[in-house]
């Protein structure tokens, strides 16, 4: 959690306008879903990988590590989709369990592959946004897009408090471990439940203290986004527009070729 956050703050693209980065990520993501073609997915994955590593400065090794988790998970998910049922042996591969045949056909395999590639491409778009854009920039962007104030306000506070409570929970878990809180399954379960309830109590004690601190600086129940967002330059906007045209063109072309 802290890792992704930290990567975003050290990104070479950190100071680029968050509107452009979010626009790029979301439009490409939608393109991937609409096109849903393997060539397109692979191309997007390659592009986003290049942007995350060469563009943003994330070491390839770390990017590979980040991709490993969704890779295995999506492979498993695709495998589930690839398996069909049949009353008789059929397809490329089959196995009989409880009187039915689990079968894998060429078609189902093709669908599974399409799903796998599409998802990996989608994940890479999400990663591009995550590793180049700090959360506070995204919140600022939401604010500029006139999202309801109460919502952005809640999100800003939640973001800060997540790290406050996670820090607390982390220290508490260490303290429990130091007193053998993880010796055995029952002890572990007991420890986790104690941890969860203690963090809860601390959260409420802290929220009172934080509120006092806010009041002491003149808080009257409303709090606005006051930060400054990087604006896009004319050149960036031009490149972005060109990219969008290219993206739409590519989606249409791929759809048309696929019929």
């Amino acid at each position: 959690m802290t890792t992704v956050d930290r990567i975003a703050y050290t990104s070479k693209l950190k100071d680029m306008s968050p509107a452009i980065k979010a626009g790029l990520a979301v439009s490409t993501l939608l393109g991937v879903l609409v096109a849903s073609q393997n060539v397109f997915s692979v191309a997007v994955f390659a592009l986003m990988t290049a942007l995350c590593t060469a563009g943003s400065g994330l070491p390839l090794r770390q990017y590979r590590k980040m991709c490993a988790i969704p890779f295995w998970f999506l492979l498993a998910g695709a495998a589930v989709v690839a398996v069909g049922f049949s009353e008789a042996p059929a397809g490329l591969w089959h196995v009989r369990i409880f009187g039915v045949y689990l079968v894998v056909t060429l078609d189902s395999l093709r669908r599974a592959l399409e799903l796998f590639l599409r998802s990996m491409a989608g994940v890479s778009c999400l990663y591009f946004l995550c590793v180049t854009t700090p959360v506070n920039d995204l919140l600022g962007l939401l604010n500029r897009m006139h999202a309801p104030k109460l919502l952005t306000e809640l999100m800003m506070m939640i973001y800060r408090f997540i790290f406050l409570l996670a820090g607390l929970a982390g220290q508490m878990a260490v303290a429990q471990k130091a007193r053998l809180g993880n010796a055995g399954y029952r002890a572990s379960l007991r420890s986790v439940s104690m941890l969860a309830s203690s963090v809860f109590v601390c959260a409420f004690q802290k929220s009172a203290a934080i509120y006092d601190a806010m009041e002491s600086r003149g808080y009257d129940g409303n709090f606005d986004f006051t930060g400054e967002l990087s604006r896009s330059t004319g050149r960036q906007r031009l490149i972005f527009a060109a990219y969008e045209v290219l993206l739409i063109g590519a989606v249409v072309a791929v759809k048309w070729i696929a019929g």
Partner: protein
Amino acid sequence: MNNWQKRSMKASVIVSMLMLTAVPVYAMHIAEGMLPIQWCLIWGALFLPFFVWGFWSIKKQCAGSGRVKMLLAMSGAYCFVLSALKMPSLVTASSSHPTGTGLGTILFGPASMAVLGFIVLLFQALLLAHGGLTTLGANAFSMAVAGPFVGYGVYLLAKKCKAPRVVSVFLCAFVADLFTYAVTATELALAFNNAEVSFMQAWGKFMGIFAMTQIPLAIVEGILTALVFEAIASL
């Protein structure tokens, strides 16, 4: 059994083991890019009214009091941290995560959970790359609406039947967890049925995997939530 079949057997065992280990850790939500665009839109549209309802409910609660807003934010952060807690898992050596919605629902009501759950899911996507932006609607519908509302209903029912508090809390968290995954399985089955695999078959497939991995986890989450709730109530 010929060689080919033996090898396929082995392969299928390996694949299912992979699923068993990878699924509980990461299957909390539907990953980015998994759902076709029309289903993203449909689930988003279905979630929207609940979100608006929750938003108004929160707005009414916060009116005139900054302290309530602060408490709600703290609660949202708490749900996030709870869902990121490593939970000792019965199934394998790997650990898993609670959904955290059961506890949140009892404490803050199902309407607030629609908004808080949505924010938590968004941060999970941005900070942990769990779930995704296009699947946010579908994930929010299962975790922030379906689970909490059904769990809360069960909780109220159990209370009406004069069940002890521990039992009502357990049932709420247990049902909220299970129902979240049942809805997730439905969402997946709706997207992945076709001429070869009917909706019911697809649903059976996804439910089968979730049942294997999620029932023990739901039991653990139920116990955990009951323990936490008792501890909080005793203070």
